[in-house]
């Protein structure tokens, strides 16, 4: 099994830490992982993204050119990567900020109103957590809900907003009906 993931969005949307949390879950599971950010003078706004690979074998190439899974937090990110997704792959879309529908029929697309759910359960900065929940639901082979939650608690255990964040995670998780 090898899954290549791209998480992409605006600078402040937490896509890099979203990717990192997925990596941690996969690591706990004993999978081989890599995490590669798009780096650069992105301090000044613009888009950010990272490539994550989780695999049962050693990861040869950390570059994800044809993702099995795309998490798109804003419109430019969706446009940039949608055509690269492998046939049969999955796409998680932040429908709070992306108001179009994907017309590719060979992939599984999920629309998650991440900003809305985040505001509802925690705060505006938690939209990535909502997506993390949605990803968890769809990727039982990477880890169980508990395993995803464990990593979340590790990350935010000491935060005052801990409970809200967990609630945002569950909201994302529940949003996916499979």
């Amino acid at each position, binding site marked *: 099994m090898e899954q290549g993931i791209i998480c992409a969005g605006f600078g402040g949307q937490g896509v890099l830490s979203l990717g990192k949390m997925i990596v941690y879950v996969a690591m706990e599971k004993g999978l081989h992982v890599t995490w590669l950010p798009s780096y650069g*003078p992105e*301090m*000044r*706004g613009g888009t950010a993204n990272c490539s994550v690979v989780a695999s049962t074998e050693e990861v040869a190439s950390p570059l994800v050119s044809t993702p099995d899974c795309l998490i798109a937090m804003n419109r430019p990110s969706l446009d940039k990567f949608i055509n690269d997704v492998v046939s049969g792959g999955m796409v998680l879309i932040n429908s709070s900020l992306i108001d179009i529908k994907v017309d590719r029929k060979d992939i599984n697309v999920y629309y998650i109103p991440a900003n809305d759910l985040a505001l509802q359960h925690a705060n505006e900065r938690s939209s990535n957590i909502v997506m993390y929940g949605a990803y968890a639901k769809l990727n039982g082979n990477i880890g169980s809900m508990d395993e995803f939650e464990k990593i979340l608690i590790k990350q935010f255990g000491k935060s005052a907003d801990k409970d809200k964040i967990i609630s945002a995670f569950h909201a994302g998780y529940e949003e996916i009906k499979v």
Partner: protein
Amino acid sequence: MATYHKSNMLTDTPLSFCPGCTHGIAHKLIAEVLQELGQQGNVIGVAPVGCSVFAYKFFNCDMQEAAHGRAPAVATGIKRVHPDKVVFSYQGDGDLASIGLAEIMHAGLRGENITVVFINNAIYGMTGGQMAPTSLIGQKTTTSPFGRTVERQGNPIRMCEMLASQDGPAYLERVMLTDYANVLKAKRAIKKAFEYQIAGKGFSMVECLSTCPTNWHMTPVQACQHIKDNMTKIYPLGVFKDVGGAK
């Protein structure tokens, strides 16, 4: 009552700076001054390496992009070829006061007839918040994570004072880009600097205390206040050299 329009010495390209970064103010002051002095079609600018590395996209004139710290050398090369053109360099504190210290000092000593706009924001913005030679004592940066101390990281560098210790520079002033009144003062200083160049008086530099809200981890408004409250203690404002009428 007045009116305000974007200067025609700025292109329409959106600036690449973070929200509230006063690099943008410095850019537009230069543009306004050059416009007011009627220098359109008479200017060559030199961009540094730093957050203002894209200055060549923003100034509506001939531009050269210099290697990190070498803008004064590049400007010297240009000015010697086109002595009748207005030549300026725009540089950050890492660029001018650290890697490029020899270049700026020797341009000053040569009395090179160029204008330098020096953005002192006490940090390396472009590379993500490392210590600058101008960082304040106590300032936490990604390479002085416990706060700068004299013992570990040495003393903040004062460029106006350093240049003023030598013969060569014609005009040196330090201003801050923090509020309306001071921005107007800064504009007057920049204008004077260019006027001196046009009059052939030699090297002029305006040091602008400038914000880096992103790497200072402050709001733009807080950042301006920080300059007033803290930076000016180490970097007092004022004119450090002015040859006045003399050449």
